[in-house]
């Protein structure tokens, strides 16, 4: 089985992002960048599948600026076999990302595409579902458990009501949720070894995709702040306050 894993370069999970003063975007200069945490879980899963002997090749793919090579190298150090970068400095919207990934899928013919359930920058949670629609293949979103049985996979999904299990035929697209696994730490020798693994980079523009479905980002603003609260000194005072506000 061949697995394709997407790795998006995003502002690190621990950074508190700020909106630029002129409202034209968010401040990303000099900010720590990382692999989208959900994509990291997707890659960890692919590596575990390969370690169990159920896959023989893992290809990681990113769409983004040249600096995304850092995240791809980290992915190679974790255990991917080779990497593909579709390089662009534009902010890529989900449909374009899905179309670009379809292009890679058609060239690579993977049995499985593993992706994060959402990127923690635009929080869209669309690209995996769009890719599976464009590809005409099954989707299994928000996966917390994946079990293979020949050309079929049973996927347990994290849904609002609890857990749901569906079975999909391969090839398929799966987007992963937090509890699927805990990604490994990368050790230094692996980082050195990863430098020798193949990384192909080409401009996204070469695919000739149109951006005519793109939305316009009109303005960015900080979220509304909640007003300052009040400190109470005791449980009794808390209960009184809640009663005064009609909440008890």
């Amino acid at each position, binding site marked *: 089985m061949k697995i394709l894993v997407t790795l998006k370069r995003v502002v690190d999970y621990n950074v508190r992002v700020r909106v630029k003063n002129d409202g034209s975007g968010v401040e990303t200069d000099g900010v720590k960048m990382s692999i989208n945490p959900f994509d990291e879980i997707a890659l960890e899963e692919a590596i575990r599948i390969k370690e169990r002997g159920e896959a023989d090749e893992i290809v990681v793919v990113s769409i983004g600026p040249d600096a995304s090579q850092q995240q791809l190298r980290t992915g190679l150090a974790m255990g991917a076999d080779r990497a593909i970068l579709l390089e662009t400095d534009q902010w890529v919207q989900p449909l374009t990302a899905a179309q670009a990934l379809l292009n890679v899928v058609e060239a690579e013919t993977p049995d499985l595409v593993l992706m994060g359930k959402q990127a923690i920058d635009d*929080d869209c949670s669309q690209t995996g*579902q769009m890719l599976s629609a464009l590809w005409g293949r099954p989707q299994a979103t928000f996966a*917390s458990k994946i079990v293979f049985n020949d050309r079929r996979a049973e996927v347990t999904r994290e849904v*609002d*009501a*609890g857990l749901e299990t569906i079975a999909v035929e391969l090839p398929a697209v799966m987007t992963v949720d937090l*509890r699927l696994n805990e990604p490994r730490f990368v050790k230094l020798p692996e980082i050195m070894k990863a430098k020798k693994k193949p990384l192909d980079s080409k401009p996204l523009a070469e695919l000739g995709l149109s951006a005519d479905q793109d939305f316009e980002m009109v303005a960015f603003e900080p979220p509304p702040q909640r007003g300052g609260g009040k*400190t109470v000194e005791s449980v009794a005072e808390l209960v009184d306050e809640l009663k005064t506000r009609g909440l008890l």
Partner: protein
Amino acid sequence: MAKVLIIAEHDGRSLSPATAKTVQGAHGLAADVIDVVVFGDALDAIAQDAAKLAGVTCVRVVEDASLAPALASRLAPEVVALSEGYTHILAPSTTFGRDLLPRVAGLLGCNQVSDVMEVVDARTFKRPIYAGNAIVTVRVPDAISPVLATVRTASFAAAAASGSAKVEAASAQAQDPGHTEYVGAEGSSGEGPDLSSATVVVSGGRAMGSSENFELIGSLAKKLGAAVGASRAAVDAGYVPNELQVGQTGKIIAPDLYIAVGISGAIQHLTGIKDAGTIVAINKDPDAPIFEVADLGLVGDLFELLPELESAL
């Protein structure tokens, strides 16, 4: 001249409250028509509930055994088949809508607005990004039709049950792609009100220390008739199942009263509760970020304060 189609969410027995909130969101579009489509099997009661939602023009009922339980790959082509003539297609931003609508978008070859928190006009919407650290105003260009959007249910009240829309049967038009099969579901414990729509929620964080200690949260919630929630840290630590997670990667909720116990208040958690009416924080660290957003803060040891609070109620 907006003509809106809303995809109803239900569990086979009743209409999800998320649907009524999505209808409320659609009111901001100044629509001439708001139709609701219900897919599934044996839908009479669900269709009647949808028909009562204020502002709904028509409930279109598509009954077919192959449409239940809902699978995105089965439903998406049905939505596309019905989409003709609509300017907007909306779904709630729940795991149901977030699974389905981007697949519809893929089939239609268009982008989708995720998590609409405010409708500015029929083509302009506000939505949170970066875990709610920023709000972006997105405009869908005039050339793009239909406009697809998922509605952040915590941002809208439920539409009143004061209407009486007509109900029309429609037949399934698309083929079952046959590559996806429903196997089964495992519900949450089922005790107490549903977290997504509860008016009172009590949540615990990592400071609870164990799943046994988390019972203190359950016990207080029971006394208050509240739903139980948790921070991601408490879920990661294995104290409670993931469906109780509140925050960026869990549920976004808007109860009238939210009581956060032993939760430090990471931005990813706060983004899930910022529409709550009153936030109460109980934490032993007076510098915890949760106190910056809390309306009422109580500093102290939760293991002493929780039993005290429960007996004071």
